[in-house]
């Protein structure tokens, strides 16, 4: 069997990234779009950690931790916006959120 190399991890990360992009670009439900963004961030994290191992230092892992922090902030804000919007417009579909104000 082929030994598992960094390349393998990169391919997995790329696949997750593309799945996330597809989700962001095609879905209507804001919640699922936010989840797709989490998918993208995870793909990036996986890349960073894989590179961290390749280069033998911890900077990649540090970045990954910062991205996790960022993802937490993003989820809180995104879901906050979502709830505020849902309260006013009773919809969570992106293509109905086109008024640029409420």
């Amino acid at each position, binding site marked *: 069997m082929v030994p598992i190399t960094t390349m393998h991890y990169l391919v997995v990360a790329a696949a997750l990234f593309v799945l996330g992009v597809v989700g962001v670009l095609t879905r209507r439900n804001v919640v699922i779009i936010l989840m797709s963004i989490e998918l993208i961030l995870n793909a990036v994290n996986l890349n960073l950690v894989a590179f961290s191992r390749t280069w033998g230092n911890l900077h990649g892992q540090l970045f990954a931790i910062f991205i996790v922090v960022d993802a937490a902030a993003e989820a809180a804000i995104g879901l906050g916006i979502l709830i505020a919007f849902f*309260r006013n417009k009773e919809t969570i579909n992106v293509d109905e959120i086109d008024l640029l104000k409420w």
Partner: protein
Amino acid sequence: MNPVLNAGAAPIATSFFFYFLAGAAILSGLLVITRRNAVHSALALIVTLLSVSGLYLMLYAPFVAGVQIIVYAGGIMVLFLFVIMLVNIERVSKERQFNRIWPVGLLASCALLAVFLAAFTKGKDLFHDRPITLPEDSNTQQVATMLYGEVVKTIQNPKGQYMIGQYTFAFEIASLLLLVAILGAVIMTKKKI
């Protein structure tokens, strides 16, 4: 001490676990973007997150794996589920699931995939797998050192001297970011302030 008794844990069945976790991650990633029901998507995303944290463990990044589980799966996803239940509207899952420009989006994603494929096939040599393994035992300690700094004790100075870590500033900025996020979320979700 007998080296046989305390042999370091050599990873077993690496490729099996890698393919298993990678498959689980990608498959549930696919489910995330295809399910009608947002709760199903969220559950699939949890599986993805756990698989990815398994992959981190295989990459000798136990601290990141732990953070991934505790923050993502235990925190963020509970928040997601909470919000989905709060805005639980039946009709969303019966409506059209994809937005009007979905062909464009899909096309763009395909283009992105093509770029990735091209990069991987053309630039295969760029990503050599070096036989470097990170020492597992001190991972947390090292991460902590880089984030917060450490107290260095020498013979001349036994009380120790504080060394600022490489990322201490970024760490403080991150905490500020979180504070702003908390305030923003509270202000936005509160009905009356």
